[in-house]
């Protein structure tokens, strides 16, 4: 018993490929495929139009939101600047408490306490 190796020739391979990849020949098939392609394209175009419309509608809303955020941000910054300016102005106008007055008041209070202690004993 002998073994023979059989390898398809290029032409046998091509023939087999042609048979394997034969496109449908029924005209009805192609009409149906055409209808499906056109329906798919129409659906895609519809989705695209709907999406474009949504983007168009969203654009002014987005612009308004951006403006609102900018205005709110500017208001916050302005308020902070105003608060800082007021705080600074209040510090400048009030001035620091007098050290001598404070010291005197303290020594008077200490003197009263000493006098009370002496009288009670």
């Amino acid at each position, binding site marked *: *018993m*002998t*073994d*023979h*190796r*059989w*390898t*398809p020739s*290029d032409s*046998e*391979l*091509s023939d*087999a*490929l*042609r*048979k*394997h*990849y034969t*496109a449908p020949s029924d005209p009805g098939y*192609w009409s149906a*495929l*055409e209808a*499906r*392609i*056109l329906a*798919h*394209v129409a659906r*895609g*175009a519809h989705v*695209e139009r709907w999406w474009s419309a949504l983007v168009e509608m969203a654009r002014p809303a987005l612009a308004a939101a951006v403006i609102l955020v900018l205005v709110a941000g500017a208001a916050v910054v302005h308020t902070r600047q105003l608060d800082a300016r007021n705080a600074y102005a209040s510090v400048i106008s009030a001035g620091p408490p007098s050290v001598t007055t404070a010291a005197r008041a303290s020594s008077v209070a200490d003197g009263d306490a000493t006098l009370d202690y002496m009288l009670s004993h």
Partner: protein
Amino acid sequence: MRAPIDGAPTERAIVIAAQHGSDEAFSALVRLHQRRAYSVVRAIVLSHEDAEDAVQEGFLHAHRALDRFRPDQPFGAWLYRIMANAALDLVRRRKVRDADELPDNIAIPFRDPAESGELRERLTEALRHLTDRQRAVIVLHDVEGFTHGEIGRTLGIPEGTARSDLHHARATLRRLLQIIRSTP
């Protein structure tokens, strides 16, 4: 739509009408090119069903990109390039979905290829062992009769690469389809 002397509009005229939004003109382009488009995508995908999906997707992409097409260029070449890309995208998506391993050996009992559809069955399995590009190249060349240059333009690869892919695809298929026959 402009009509030449014989009454039938030229493809260029149909393309221009489609670019101006004529659904009728786009339908005519589908009718003119769907068979060849099917053949191009069928060379890349593994099944008839996938080929139908890829053709539909390809025509949708073409419809969206129609404004960017220059009518002085050959419409077919432009369309088939889009088709090939749609098919390659579909194959990539399928691969992600069905990430399963293929067996190394194709174990189908031997019957004489001349007497049965044996070679065809084995071929179906053997084609799965080629890369997507090799499969596309050999099918476009052997089945559709594309030249190496046309294959290169359709698949977006250099002509030399198409030539080399064809050589490797043939060698792989012949090796996988090799059969050892015992005779007394």
